[in-house]
């Protein structure tokens, strides 16, 4: 009984990690720009597929491949911001969101052209037998995924609280105009937010691909789940996305395990609707803060 529960819990934590990373990616960009970047899921796919390209196709060493993958995802984020978001300079948020959707289609087009429509995977980060925790069988990669997510959360926390750039980005989130007045280069912060968010997404993709495979069109579903995670925890709140991501992941795997696998997406969405109707600012959010948001 407990064994089965633990098994579901760990599989929930694994998917939840990726949702949390995607959700944090949403928050990073949302805080700097108020834009919802629906190409966030594609960053994860870029991470998984580029990792395969560097490690399995070019046979580069593991660490080098990871670094190159994260850098190339950062480059994708940079190009996206430079080529679409910056020239547009529009205050029409709906238009900006539509642009991120169309960029995601372009990215999918490029990925489909480069990698075709097959699923890809590569070996797990460490070899060895699966672990036995309380009777539940846990793949070692599961621990990698959860550990890497934890590391990302800590690094992002340190970045936002201890570095000058991070603090400047938080200032932009509170009030863009005021941030500009005290001499913060807001457009650079926007650029950094896209790079950072692409890197966070790619890290999720790198970690999860050995478990769940990666296809060129995995992006939209990941974006929807990550978006739900961010909303559930209160849009713009770092901790919120983490809690939202893990709750959605665990709910999904519990539903799939105890009820019916076809219903797993529905349950997460129903819970999300309830959260929205009962407490629109998210589990952690305050309604006063939500009212201040521009969109």
């Amino acid at each position, binding site marked *: 009984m407990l064994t089965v529960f633990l098994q579901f819990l760990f599989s929930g934590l694994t998917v939840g990690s990726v949702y949390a990373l995607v959700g944090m990616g949403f928050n990073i960009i949302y805080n700097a720009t108020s834009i919802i970047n629906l190409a966030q899921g594609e960053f994860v796919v870029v991470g998984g597929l580029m990792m395969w390209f560097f490690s399995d196709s070019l046979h580069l060493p593991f660490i080098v491949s990871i670094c190159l993958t994260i850098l190339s995802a950062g480059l994708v984020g940079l190009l996206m911001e430079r080529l679409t978001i910056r020239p547009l300079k529009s205050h029409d948020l709906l*238009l900006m969101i539509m642009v991120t959707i*169309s960029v995601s*289609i372009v990215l999918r087009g490029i990925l489909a052209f480069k990698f075709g429509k097959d699923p890809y995977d590569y070996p797990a980060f460490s070899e060895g037998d699966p672990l036995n925790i309380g009777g539940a069988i846990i793949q070692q990669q599961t621990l990698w995924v959860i550990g890497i997510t934890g590391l990302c959360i800590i690094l992002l926390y340190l970045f936002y609280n201890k570095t000058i750039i991070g603090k400047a980005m938080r200032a932009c989130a509170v009030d863009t105009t005021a941030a500009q007045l005290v001499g913060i280069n807001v457009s650079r912060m926007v650029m950094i937010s896209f790079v950072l968010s692409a890197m966070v997404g790619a890290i999720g993709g790198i970690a999860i691909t050995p478990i769940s495979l990666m296809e060129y069109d995995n992006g939209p579903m990941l974006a929807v789940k990550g978006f739900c995670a961010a909303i559930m925890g209160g849009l713009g709140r770092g901790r919120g996305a983490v809690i939202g991501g893990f709750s959605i992941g665990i709910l999904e795997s519990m539903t799939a395990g105890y009820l019916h696998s076809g219903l797993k997406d*529905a349950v997460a969405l129903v819970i*999300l609707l309830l959260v*929205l109707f009962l407490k*629109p600012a998210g589990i952690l959010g305050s309604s006063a803060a939500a009212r201040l948001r521009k969109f």
Partner: protein
Amino acid sequence: MNRDNSLAVLVLIAVIIFVPLVSGSAYVITIGVFSGINALIAIGLCILMGYAGQVSLGQAGFYGIGAYVSATLTHHYGLPVPLCVAAAMIVSAFAAVILAVPSLRLKGHYLAVATLSFGEIINIALNEWGPGGPSGFGDIPTFNILDFIFDTTTSYFYLVWGCVVLVLLFSFNFINSRTGRALRALHGSELASRAMGLDVTALKIKVFVISAAYASLAGSLYAHYVTFISPSSFTLFYSILVLMMVVIGGITNLWGGVVGAILITILPELLRSFEEFDVLVYGLILTLSLMFLRRGLVPLLIEKIKQLRGPLIARD
């Protein structure tokens, strides 16, 4: 309804009559049918977004309800098609009210995600409990009114675009009615309209129901045309596509919905020759048109025409 819009409707009717006469190709007319079906939903979303200022990412849900309800009723119970289409619209309208009452307290992103969840839940429900499950079902009767069966592509083209014209006329009257003016006030400032004594919530629900009914009608027309439906036609991707049509056409004008729907329906067909590049080129065209058209094609065209003709043309 002002003079320019009446004129435009007349031009549209003329184009509708002439397209099948000029082009004998069934392929072109089929694309025309799908453009018309998409235009119906896009017009609904235009009213919802451009006039009531509400976003919806769940139109595919109502589209799906329309298709499934009228298809099931006609296929399994043998009821007359127009009756079932109307029944489907009523079911969608009810669903819209149920969704709207709690959702419309929400704004912006939150409303978007609530409608998105609704659409996805409908899609999952169709997959799980819909007739035929994920593989759907066929043998849906073609649209017929009494003894007349719309079994040729051309007759169906006239049927669909006839509906588009009726929906347009109804919509223009709606947005120029008392409710429509109230809506524009609401779009301008919700607080001010509340202070003027408008029942804002009732207004929003009304518009939501209208857009759901249009989407449902489109869904029914789709089901009775292709005579086979499965949940894969009613996904989030479709909702986003409709949103794209409306944004590219221009949300502030109902014609934007029509023009956007036609363009987005034709585009993938034109890109067939690019083969494996098609998704890439499609994405690039969408990105560029969003970046350079901004407010949408139709408002931009109207502005240009205004510049050419001077102040003669009426606004709207």
